[in-house]
């Protein structure tokens, strides 16, 4: 028993916790960006877009391709790195947007009046197809970018925040604020909110539903493209990353209250925190019974508890009866 207490307290330093908090928030900011795609589509169509994570995965490969074309290495100068990263972001956004648009048109639109589960099956089919396509024709190995923006800012004692992490945080917050403005202030955003509330009534009021749905997919997928760039700055990718990241992002969307933009952000941060703190301290906290191999169990357990005790999410956007 004493040994367990020692274990529990040995790893716990304020610096360590702070560092994990920073890591968690930056990871969460990427989850949040992907979560927005799920959240928006679910809001409009009430469909879990299973293929959304794979759109993100394709984005990461586009980023790999673009940076590979320019031969970026860890020692490249900032004057080269920044334009190339911007280019990679634009390319990933554009390709993801086209892909999202196509998926909706080919796989979901013909099923709009079909039984409820049909689009879900179709989404699963698309997801398999994209994963297998990358594995067959591109690569089925792990890939990382070289460390492009090396360096960090010291914060407190030996706690640091890396430039990459600052970039991740800032860009995801900017994207989310932008999206919020889009949904609040433009006529397209009004259309999206109307379709989310009541599809038929919105159509009667003259909202072009097909156009709204297409744009929802385009915007959500473009955000996944942004998330892909940020992800590649700090993490690795392979063809299955879409499923894993997608699942976590969906969890984030549900935690925050699906259909709610600030909620997705909050959910993403919470999940990122839970994951990085969990991975760092679970082994010690459980006296070595649970290793970090149980990381995903805790993410799921978090989701399950959340859904059981507060099914409408933290921000309570919609009534749980509808889900």
């Amino acid at each position, binding site marked *: 028993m004493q040994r367990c207490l020692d274990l529990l307290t040995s790893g716990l330093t304020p610096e360590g916790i702070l560092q994990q908090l920073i890591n968690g928030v930056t990871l969460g900011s990427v989850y949040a960006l992907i979560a927005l795609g799920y959240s928006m589509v679910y809001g409009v169509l009430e469909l879990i877009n299973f293929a959304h994570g794979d759109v993100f995965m394709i984005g990461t490969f586009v980023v790999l391709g673009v940076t590979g074309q320019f031969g970026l290495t860890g020692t490249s100068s900032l004057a080269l790195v920044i334009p190339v990263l911007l280019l990679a972001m634009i390319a990933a956004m554009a390709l993801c947007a086209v892909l999202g648009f196509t998926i909706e048109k080919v796989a979901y639109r013909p099923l709009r009046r079909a039984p409820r589960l*049909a689009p879900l099956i179709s989404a699963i089919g698309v997801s*398999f*197809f994209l994963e*297998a396509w990358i594995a*067959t024709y591109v690569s*089925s190995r792990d890939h990382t970018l070289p460390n492009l923006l090396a360096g960090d800012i010291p914060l407190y004692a030996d706690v640091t925040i890396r430039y990459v992490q600052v970039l991740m945080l800032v860009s995801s917050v900017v994207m989310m604020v932008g999206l919020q403005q889009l949904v609040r202030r433009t006529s397209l955003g009004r259309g999206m909110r109307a379709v989310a509330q009541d599809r038929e009534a919105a159509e009667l009021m003259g909202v072009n539903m097909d156009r709204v749905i297409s744009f929802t997919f385009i915007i959500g997928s473009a955000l996944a493209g942004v998330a892909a760039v940020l992800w590649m700055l700090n993490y690795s990718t392979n063809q299955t990353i879409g499923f894993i990241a997608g699942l976590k992002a969906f969890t984030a969307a549900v935690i925050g209250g699906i259909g709610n933009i600030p909620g997705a952000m909050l959910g993403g941060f919470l999940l990122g925190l839970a994951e990085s703190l969990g991975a760092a301290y679970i082994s010690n906290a459980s006296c070595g019974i649970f290793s970090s191999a149980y990381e995903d169990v805790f993410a799921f357990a978090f989701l399950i508890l959340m859904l059981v005790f507060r099914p409408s999410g933290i921000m309570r956007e919609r009534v749980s009866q509808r889900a």
Partner: protein
Amino acid sequence: MSFVDAFVAFLHGPFGNNPFAILAWQALLAGAAYLIVRLVRGRVPRQATAPVRLAGRGASVVLRNRYALLLIGLFLPLIELLTGGYLLSVTYSIELYVLLAVGLNIVVGFTGLLDLGYVAFFAVGAYVYGLFASPQLYEITKQTTYFLVSQSVVGPQPGFHISMLVLIPLAGAAAALFGVLIGIPTLRLRGDYLAIVTLGFGEITRIFANNLDQPINITNGPNGIINIDPVTIGSYSFGNPANHLGPFQIPPFLNYYYLVLLLILLTVFIVSRLERSRVGRAWAAIREDETAAQVAGINTRNLKLLAYASGGFFGGMAGAIYAAGQHLIAPDSFQLFVSILVLVMVVAGGMGSIPGAVVGAIVVGFLYFLSPSLLYLRILVFGGLLVLLIIVRPQGFLPSAQRERELEEKEEDPSLVAAAPGPAP
């Protein structure tokens, strides 16, 4: 150059290995296929398509006839034996999927609870069989100080070796209990939320199986449980490749094939009785409108738990037989993919219909197992076909009559309205 090689080369296109070139080529192919379908549709004279339609109708008649299905089920493996063992092993796997699909159909089709973690039941059944019919439990006791158990079970072979007649129902019961345990916290959830939570439970099960070699080695971690006993009846071991019937050698798969066929018959019999019972009608009521069902006096909580339990029971039985047939089980066999494959079978067959689940499992199973088994190409083809299949026939191959009627009512197709007998003028 085999057919598969030609197919792979055709998909790859003539423009080299650049992904964008391949993408462009495949987009071209898809566009051409779409154009051809658009052009051809409605222009082909009816006589030309008559053989195809006739074959389709014939297949539908055969598939709807349970005696014809049974006859095929009885004799198919014998024909397959002539072509070598591979087809038979595929058919055997599909049989297990039929059992799983009929079980999942109770949860998803009858009761309308979308379960994406059905593989958990399969895993629980397999591990129960694996633990109680292998030296694994003896291995556990060796590591701990609890020698009592191990001493009592050290015989000619250490560990428990319980008969399958006990173990297969026991595996089912354990999975059913597991279903209730999963069901309790998720009672309030509906639709897609339920799907994600069940998916989570499925993954949690697999992760635990993968990591429970510490602190006490229960599942033997990623290596899985080995040396699992085959099914034996008296002195006849199903796993013995030297079994002979007269001059004919009986491969192990054939034994298991007929065992599972028997179980499928039993399952279909029980489940179709359940469907038409008071319980089945209550399940249908919950599926159509849970609130209304509750108001009508149906105990939705118990009935939903019962749906999970009965679905789990059949999944657990399938898992036990799987463990016996394979001799070894590892967590990798219980990936999320299995859950999704079974769900696809149920939906493709037509939700809520037992013949649909059976036929869906057979069609999707053959599609999956017989598509070119080149690493990822199989999943590529399968994913594409899945989308195509569900777009062409969103209600499934053999939807239950009731479901079909509901769909027709909803669609308000003008041609149907015109065809309906109206009041006499």
